[in-house]
């Protein structure tokens, strides 16, 4: 199962990268970023998965035998923070898009050529 899931994560990352590179609309580019983010999170959590083990919560599992019965909790803790920061970064990008749209009245990335050489 974890092989299917990790390949799904890599495929989502490639899909997001393709969207970032090929789309012209700024909102579509940000959607590409969020899909890339989701793919990375899936890959990170599946690296910490241990076959047939339970979630790292010690309610039924005794603390003495925890090490042999739970999955790796460290990637989960890292991804937890990464998701929240992802929301902040996405909101920041959207606000920049709002500001850019006020300047040029367009969402097409080709209309922003001020710094192009």
């Amino acid at each position, binding site marked *: 199962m974890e092989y*299917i899931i990790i390949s799904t994560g890599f495929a989502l990352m490639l899909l997001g990268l393709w969207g970032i590179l090929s789309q012209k609309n700024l909102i579509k580019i940000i959607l590409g970023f969020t899909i890339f983010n989701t793919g990375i999170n899936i890959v990170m959590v599946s690296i910490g998965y241990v076959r047939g083990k339970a979630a790292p919560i010690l309610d039924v599992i005794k603390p003495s035998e925890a090490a042999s019965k739970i999955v790796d909790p460290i990637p989960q803790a890292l991804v937890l923070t990464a998701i929240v920061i992802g929301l902040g970064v996405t909101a920041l990008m959207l606000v920049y898009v709002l500001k850019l749209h006020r300047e040029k009245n367009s969402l097409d990335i080709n209309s922003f050529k001020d710094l192009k050489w």
Partner: protein
Amino acid sequence: MFIAIAIVIGVASLIGGYIAIHHEKLSVAVIASGLVSLFASIIFLLLAAPDVAMTEASIGSGLTTLIFFYVLNKIRQRND
């Protein structure tokens, strides 16, 4: 059993990602990207990570989609 669920969810999330990048209407694309996040939260549940699944469902799928819609709304108001 879990393998079948994983295949179905994985294919569905890839289709959602393709729609999110390629659909012409922005609102449909945003909904599709929210759907990808929702499928991802089911994947996290399969990977025995309920904490991450909760975060992804509430933040990645809920709040992100709504902020996208607020910004789309502002842009549409200005274009009118």
